C-alpha cells in the first residue's frame, strides 16, 4: 500500500512539474492574500484576462514551436519572423493594402522562411538550431533595414480597424487576441493528437531511423512543422503589432529562447518525440504567471531585477529536473 502511494506520487511528480508549479504559485498567492498587508488583485477576472492577453503572443509562438520540437527539430528564428511580419504588416497597410491581404502576405512570408529553414536543416541534414539562430539574426537585420531601426506604427486613418484586430473586446471583456490564441491551441492540439501528420511527428521525433524504415515520408513530415512554426510566428507578429500599434526591430531579440525554454519547461522534450499543445500552454502560462505574481507582490520595489533572477532560476530548476528524470530512466534500463 505504502509503496503504491509512493509510486503514485513519483509518477505525478514526473508527469507534470510545470502544472504542479502553477498550483504552488496559486497556493502561495492565496496565502499572501490572507494577509491584508499583502492582499492583491491576483484573484480577479480582470487579472486573469490580462494574464492571458499578455501571454497570448508567446502562446501562439510556443504552439507552433511545439510541433517542431515534437518532430525532433527546433526553430529559433521565430523571434525574427515575428518582428519582420509585424513590421511588414504595418508598412503594407500604410501603403494602402487592405488589412486581410496584408495578413495573408505576412503569413505566406512566415511560411517561406519556414520553408528555407526546413530545406537547409531537414533536406540538407544540418543542425537546426544554429541554422535557425542564423536565420533569426538575418531577419533582425532585415527588420532594422526596413524600419531604419525606428519604431513604426499604422497611419491614423487605418489605425482603428488594425487595432481592433487583437484589441476588440468580445462580450464586453474578452479581447480577440485571446480567442485567436485559443483557436490556435485547439488546431495544434487536434493536429498533434488526431491527424496522421501529427502522429508521424511523434514517430520521427522519437526515432528518425525507425520512422524512416516504417515507411513514413520523414523528409516531408519533418519539414512541415517548420512551415507551421513560421506561420504561427508570422501570425503572432501581426497580432503583436495590432495589440501595440507598433512594430520595432528589437521586439524579437530574446523571444525565441524564452519561448523554447517555456515550452520545454511545460514538458515537451528537446530531444523530440514527447510533448503536446496543452503541455506547452502550461509551461508558457507558468512563466507568465510567475512574472504576474511578482508584479502583484511588488517584489520589484524591494529588490529591483529580482524577478528576472527568480525566473532564470526556475527555468534552470525545471530543465535540470527534466534532464535528471531522463538520466534516471537511462540508468534504470
Amino acid at each position: 500500500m505504502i509503496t503504491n502511494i509512493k509510486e503514485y506520487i513519483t509518477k505525478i511528480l514526473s508527469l507534470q512539474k510545470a502544472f504542479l508549479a502553477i498550483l504552488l504559485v496559486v497556493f502561495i498567492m492565496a496565502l499572501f492574500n490572507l494577509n491584508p498587508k499583502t492582499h492583491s488583485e491576483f484573484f480577479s477576472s480582470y487579472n486573469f484576462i490580462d494574464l492571458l492577453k499578455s501571454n497570448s503572443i508567446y502562446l501562439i509562438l510556443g504552439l507552433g514551436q511545439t510541433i517542431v520540437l515534437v518532430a525532433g527539430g527546433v526553430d529559433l528564428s521565430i523571434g525574427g519572423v515575428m518582428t519582420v511580419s509585424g513590421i511588414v504588416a504595418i508598412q503594407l497597410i500604410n501603403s494602402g493594402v487592405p488589412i486581410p491581404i496584408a495578413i495573408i502576405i505576412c503569413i505566406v512570408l512566415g511560411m517561406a522562411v519556414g520553408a528555407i529553414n526546413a530545406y537547409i536543416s531537414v533536406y540538407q541534414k544540418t543542425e537546426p538550431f544554429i541554422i535557425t539562430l542564423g536565420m533569426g539574426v538575418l531577419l533582425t537585420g532585415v527588420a532594422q533595414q526596413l524600419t531604419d531601426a525606428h519604431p513604426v506604427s499604422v497611419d491614423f486613418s487605418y489605425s482603428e480597424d488594425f487595432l481592433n484586430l487583437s484589441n476588440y473586446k468580445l462580450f464586453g471583456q474578452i479581447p480577440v487576441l485571446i480567442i485567436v490564441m485559443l483557436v490556435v491551441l485547439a488546431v495544434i492540439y487536434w493536429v498533434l493528437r488526431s491527424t496522421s501528420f501529427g502522429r508521424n511527428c511523434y514517430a520521427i521525433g522519437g526515432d528518425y531511423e525507425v520512422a524512416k524504415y516504417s515507411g513514413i515520408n520523414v523528409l516531408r513530415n519533418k519539414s512541415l512543422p517548420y512551415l507551421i512554426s513560421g506561420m504561427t510566428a508570422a501570425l503572432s507578429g501581426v497580432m503583436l503589432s495590432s495589440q501595440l500599434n507598433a512594430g520595432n526591430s528589437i521586439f524579437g531579440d530574446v523571444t525565441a529562447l524564452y519561448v523554447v525554454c517555456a515550452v520545454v519547461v511545460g514538458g515537451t522534450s528537446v530531444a523530440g518525440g514527447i510533448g503536446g499543445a496543452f503541455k506547452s500552454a502550461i509551461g508558457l502560462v507558468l512563466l507568465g504567471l510567475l512574472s504576474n505574481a511578482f508584479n502583484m507582490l511588488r517584489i520589484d520595489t524591494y529588490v529591483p531585477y529580482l524577478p528576472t533572477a527568480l525566473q532564470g532560476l526556475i527555468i534552470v530548476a525545471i530543465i535540470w529536473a527534466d534532464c535528471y528524470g531522463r538520466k534516471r530512466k537511462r540508468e534504470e534500463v
Partner: protein
Amino acid sequence: MTIQSIIKLIRNNLILAGIVVLVIVTSLIEPKFLTGANIENIIRQFGTLIFVALGMTFVIMAGFIDLSVGGIISLVAVVTVTLIDKIGQGPAIMIGISIGLICGLLNSFLIITSGALTQAEALFLTYGMSLVYGAVAQIYVQGVTQFLTYSKTSISLFDAINSGSIGIVSISFIIFLVCLLILYIVEKRTYIGRSVVLVGGNKVAARLAGVPISKSIVFIYAVSGVMTAIGSVILVARVTLASPVMGTPYMTQAILAVVVGGTALMGGKGSVLWTVMGTLLLILMGNCLNLMGVTTYIQYMLRGAILILAIWLDNRKQFSEGN
C-alpha cells in the same frame, strides 16, 4: 597542378581563401585598408570577441554549448569596476576572473548533476543561468551603469591593457597570444585536452574507453568562464564603463566565430587556431564593409547569412568526405 587539385585545396581551406579574397578585394577597392592605422584598428577589434570565442571553442568541441557568456561578461564587468576603488586594480581584476571561473564551475555542476548529455539540454540550462548572472549583475549595481574611475592611483592597469604597447605590439594582443599558446598546448598536448575532443566525438564510446567525461565537462566550462572573464576585463578597459547588459551581443557572435572557423557544432572536431581564423574573417569582413560604407543593418543580415552558409558548406564537405 590541375584545376581540380586547386579547387580541392580551396575547398579544404575555405576560411583562409575567404580571408585572402577579402584582403585583396578590399585593398583594391579601398587603399586605406592596408594602412598601419587600420591594421591596428583590426587588431584592437580582436579584443573581447576572440577571448570569448576561444573559450567557447572547447565547449563546442566537446559537443556542448555555453550561452551564459553574455551574463558572465556583464557580471564580471560590473563587479570588477565597482571593486577598483575599494581594493585596487590588480585584486579587482583577479576577483573578476575568479567570478568567471565560479560561474563556469556552477554551469558544469548543473550539467553534470542533471546528467545532460545533448547540446540542446546544455543550451537551455546555460541560457537560464545567463538570465540569472545578468539579473545578479543588475541587482548588484541597481541597473546603473558604472564608470571606470581611478581616484586613488596614478598608474592604470586598464589604460595599459587598452592602449599600452611593447614595441609595436599592443598589450591586449600579447595577452591574446599568451592565452592562445596555452590553450593550443592544452588542446594538442595534454590528456584533458584530448579527452575533450573524444567526448565531443562520441560520448558513449568515450565513457566505455574510460575517458573522464565529468572532468572534461568541468574543464570546458571553467575554461569558457575564465576566458570570458578575461574578455570582459578587456572590454571594460576599452569602453571605460561597465553596464549590466553589455555582454548580451557576444553570445551569438562567439558561436558564429567558432562555427565559421570550422569547428563542428556536433563536437569532436575543431581547434582554437581555426577559431582565430574564423574571428579574423568576421572582423575583416566587418572592417571591409565599414570601409565601403555598408550600413550596420545589412552587416547584421550578412552575419546571419554567413552563419547559415558556413554550416551548410561544412556539412556538404563532410558528406562528400563520408562518401
